[in-house]
């Protein structure tokens, strides 16, 4: 019928007729294909493997939900890893106020400020492995600078910071905070560039300064930067793997494990032959991350709706 109604349509090819609808998908196609191949499909494969007992080499044996029952029904290593993850999540968030503070400090026009900025940003540029190594020397018992400093206050940490199960996780988080604070700082610095000087001027005329200026005028304008800082910090905390592998290797006696490290240990490390169990841990970690990501996506969606 369309043919009869508009004879010109027949002369145009199918692509020409649908160009506007199809073209975006064509451009998206490579991205979608690779995202599916390397992210989406492996997620479902992990679900699948987590129902099997498999050493990564031989036959898979179906065990149903046995791995999950064991994980959630009193696997102490899992509990330790889980609570360490929670510690990471909350303490890592200190990077956000820390980054904001340094950004405010550096957001001024002084001679050589670029140099100071780059020095503060430096830890984010160097590899996490290097940061981990530097901190583990810093924490060395007896010879390490940290031990000498706290030693002058009469504090002696038995086994050194990383050798004592009560302090090791906090020691690693502190090391992780160093580059993460730098990251948040750079996010806030760019955010501060976008702060509207007229609003600041207006607030100043109205007599706002100090805390009030920061809280009611500057921070609301930094909201996008804060949002991004939250997202990268939470995700960074949940995938904290490098620091642990370099600084303590999960020890002493497994007290610094987090879920991602535990997963690696069970399935891929020197003595790890439990692909199914590792996959089950990965699935649990996936849902924890999904919880946060959903929350962020939802709040982003809500904000966009509110803006309209």
């Amino acid at each position, binding site marked *: 019928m369309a043919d009869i109604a508009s004879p010109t349509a027949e002369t145009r090819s199918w692509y020409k007729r649908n160009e506007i609808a199809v073209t975006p998908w064509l451009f998206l196609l490579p991205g979608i294909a690779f995202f599916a191949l390397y992210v989406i499909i492996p997620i479902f494969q992990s679900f699948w493997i987590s129902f099997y007992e498999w050493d*990564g080499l031989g036959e898979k044996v179906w065990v149903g939900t046995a791995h999950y029952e064991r994980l959630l029904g009193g696997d102490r290593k899992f509990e330790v890893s889980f609570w360490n993850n929670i510690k990471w999540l909350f303490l890592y968030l200190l990077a956000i106020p820390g980054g904001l503070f340094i950004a405010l400090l550096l957001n001024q026009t002084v001679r050589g400020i670029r140099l100071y900025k780059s020095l503060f940003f430096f830890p984010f540029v160097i590899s996490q492995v290097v940061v981990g190594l530097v901190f583990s020397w810093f924490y060395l018992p007896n010879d390490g600078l940290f031990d000498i400093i706290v030693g002058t206050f009469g504090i002696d940490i038995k086994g050194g910071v990383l050798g004592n199960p009560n302090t090791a996780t906090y020691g690693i988080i502190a090391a992780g905070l160093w580059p993460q604070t730098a990251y948040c700082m750079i996010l806030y610095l760019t955010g501060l560039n976008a702060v509207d000087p007229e609003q600041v001027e207006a607030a100043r005329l109205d007599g706002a300064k100090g805390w009030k200026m920061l809280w009611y005028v500057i921070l609301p304008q930094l909201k996008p930067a804060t949002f991004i800082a939250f997202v990268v910090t939470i995700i960074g905390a949940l995938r904290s793997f490098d620091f642990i592998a370099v600084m303590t290797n999960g020890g002493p*006696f497994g007290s610094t494990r987090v879920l991602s490290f535990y997963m690696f240990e069970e399935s891929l490390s020197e003595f790890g032959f439990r692909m199914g169990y590792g996959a089950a841990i990965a699935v649990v970690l996936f849902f924890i991350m999904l919880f946060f990501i959903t929350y962020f996506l939802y709040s982003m969606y809500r904000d966009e709706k509110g803006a309209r």
Partner: protein
Amino acid sequence: MHNFLKASTAALALAVAATGANADGHALSGDLRIISDMSNPAPRAVMEGLVADFGAMHPDLNIELDIVDRDGWKTQIRNALSANPPDVVNWYAATRMTPYVDAGLFMDVSDLWAEEHFDALASTKGAMTLDGKQWGVPYTYYQWGIYYRKDIFDELGLSEPTTWEEEKANCQAIIDSGRKCYTIGTKFLWTAGGWFDYINSRTHGYDFHIQLANGEVEWTDDRVKQTFANWRELIDMGAFVEDHQSMSWQESLPALVEGDAAAILKGNFAVAPLRDAGLTDDQLDFYQFPTITEGVAPAEDAPTDTFHIASGAQNVKAAKEFLRFVTSADVQTAINSGDALGQLPVNANASVSDDKFVNEGFDMLSNNASGGIMQFFDRDFPAEMASAGMEGLQEFMVFPDNLDDILARLEDARQRIYK
């Protein structure tokens, strides 16, 4: 190095003569792919020398050698063997082979072991056997024992102990002189396994130790507790260096070099770094781990390193010839000599290097290891049990009071792992 090359050239000539008859004239050809984990400087030179010599013997054979990081290989071997497998790989003896044997990734080489040539390797056959078949060949092994500072012992008027009582008395004297008896670094866990191997096998014998490794004894058994009680005597004395959980074994050596600790329980590979750090053979000496329970035959840790043929190997003929080559008496003499690996040859017809420690080790293993040969905690126990176990051992060394809890955890792991 020059000596080694000369020695191996001589070995080569002899090996040609020895295996010439075997290969009855027809030359090997095609590609031979080898992945080796001999990545430390001296072993790397040995491996490259082996390939060069073997290549010279078989000019039509194109040998491709990949040397990968020794620790990295422990996790890479799975992928290497399952996708596009090479012909020959390095690995370790005993239970450590199990996952690859069970998955059918190592080739059964029992036919090689049936050859006359392999009679000279009889002493290591047991370590290469699983399910009644042999799955590879050894190329070197080394003793474990207590390496100590002879000058400190002389200063305190101590002699090499042979019983547990003497060991403890010595240790008390060392502690009283303001030193620690033993240095150790347990950050990577396995070093604690050596102490457990020795105290357990000296307390209850080799058979009990292997039963425990095979999951036939409960970890909460009173005999296991007795082992830990013996170990605890040393811990409570303050025999071990402090903060060992933050150190690797390499980082624990300076205590011995500087004389803050008098001894270390370690494999013969510790000698090279200690010599490099400046200890002379007059300062450093070796003794066998002392008897604990009277009448228990001494078992020794002597880990064996091995070559295997992947079941997906393309050039099986050349691979088998290479295995014959590395185990032949002359090659064994050459690669285990003091200026090469500095360890013990697996072939009974090979000669042992004139190194002091290699000789003492050879003598100990030949004449005074009637209990049996252990491969080491992480090679005798299945992977999962070893990893849980070593973590528990480290915790025990730092918090001996947690023992009951640790043993309950290990028992839980045992019931799950052995089925």
